[in-house]
Structure formats: structure tokens, C-alpha cells
């Protein structure tokens, strides 16, 4: 079982890399949030595959289900903030967010 677990971890790490790359390089606010979503997929994959490797698939599923519920709340709140930002700035460019400095 342990070897298969490693394979899942490799791919989850790749997802983390993709998400972080997106956060570091992209400029569109919504794109940035898509990066966060990809990190979230990586996290769910790690949670489930760890539980699977320990042969407690039910516990793993409970954790993943709870995590997905938290993710939905987070997405709703974040998108609400993004929509409001668009209305105030008329732009989705992260480079326009420069009011706070120092």
C-alpha cells in the first residue's frame, strides 16, 4: 500500500506547485482564486489517499466531505469580495490593488 500512497503524494505535490505558481504569477483576481481551488484539490487528494493508505476510507471520506463544505463557504465569501472589488475598481487586475502600502 505504501508505494501507491507515494504516487498520490507525487501528484498532490504537483497540484500544490500548480496552485502556488498561479498565485505567484497570475494577475486576474479570479485566476488567483482558481489557483487556491487547485491547492484545495491537492489537499483533498492528500487527505483521502492518506486515509486510504491506512485502510480507514470512511474516516478519510468524512474529513474530505467536511473539507469540501468549508471550501464552499470560503469560495462564496471570496467571490463576494472579488465581485465587490470589481464594482469599486472596475477592474480585476491585482496590480490595481495598491492602496495599502508600507
Amino acid at each position, binding site marked *: 500500500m*505504501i508505494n*501507491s500512497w*507515494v*504516487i*498520490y*503524494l*507525487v*501528484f498532490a*505535490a*504537483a*497540484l500544490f*506547485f*500548480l496552485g502556488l*505558481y*498561479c498565485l505567484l*504569477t*497570475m*494577475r*486576474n483576481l*479570479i*485566476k488567483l482564486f*482558481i489557483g487556491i*481551488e*487547485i491547492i484545495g*484539490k491537492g489537499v*483533498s*487528494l492528500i487527505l*483521502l*489517499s492518506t486515509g*486510504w*493508505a*491506512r*485502510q*480507514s*476510507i*470512511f*474516516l*478519510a*471520506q*468524512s474529513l*474530505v*466531505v*467536511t473539507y*469540501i*463544505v*468549508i*471550501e*464552499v*463557504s*470560503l*469560495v*462564496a*465569501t471570496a*467571490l*463576494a*469580495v*472579488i*465581485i*465587490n472589488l470589481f464594482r469599486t475598481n472596475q477592474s*480585476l487586475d491585482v496590480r490595481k490593488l495598491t492602496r495599502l502600502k508600507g
Partner: protein
Amino acid sequence: MTAQIILLVALVGASAWAILARDLLKSAIALAVASLLLGIIFFQMGAPYAGVFEISVVAGLITVLFMLTIALTKQGGDVRESKVVKIAFPVFFVLFAAIDVFVMKGVLARIPAIAATPEAGTFGEVLWKERSFDLVGQLAVILAGVFAVLALFRKKDHHD
């Protein structure tokens, strides 16, 4: 197992497409496809409940929320992403993938673990009986999200 690996590769591919696509709508759809693939991966691991949740909630609900946001924030002139970033991406990715596989093979082979004991009960029992505190937490986070959205979309009278 090879089927899983193909699915995993497709998952990473769809996610990469979500990041690199120029059109936001295509990104959202790529994200939905990625969620779909992840759901199938879960199902193949013997986690049907997680799979169904992933597909219906993430590929379904969250994609709808993204589409809604994209629709509400459409305007003339999109945000131009840097071209350099998209060209540099494959380089970084291959570099990372190499380090990734190398590290995981070396380090992880040596993670000590306590032997696993088989699980008792059914999924329902585990969720409702053993992790009932999590359900309280889920309720709380849903309340937080609902109130957050209500607060952020309220009719605004300007404050000083």
C-alpha cells in the same frame, strides 16, 4: 493502478490548463473537468461518498459560483496575463516534477507508521457518531459563509 495514474495525469493536465487558459470561462470549465476527474479518482479508491461530494459540490456548485462571478465581472478589456509566465511554465513544471519524484521516492520510503487497524462500522456511523463534532463545525462554517455573503451584498448606505 495504471488507470489511476492516467486519471491523475489528466487531473494535473486539466489543472494546468485552468491556469494557462486565457479565457476565464475556459479556466472555469477546466477546473470543473479537474474536479470531475478527481471525483472519479476518489470513486476508484473506494470512496464513493467523497467522489459524489466532489463532483456535485466542487464540479457543480463551485463551478456555478465561478460562472456567476465571471458573468458579473465582465467588461470590455480583460486583464492581460504576462506572456513570459506562460512560456516559463513548462520549464518550471518539468523541473519541479523531477524534484518531486526524486524527493518522494527517497524521503517517503522512510516515513515510519504505526500499523493500520481495519475500520469498523459504516460511513454513516463514522461521520455521524465518531466525527459528530465536525458536523457542528460544518454548520458553523455554513452560517459564517451565509452571513458573509449577506453582509457583502447588502444595500450600502455610505459610512464616513
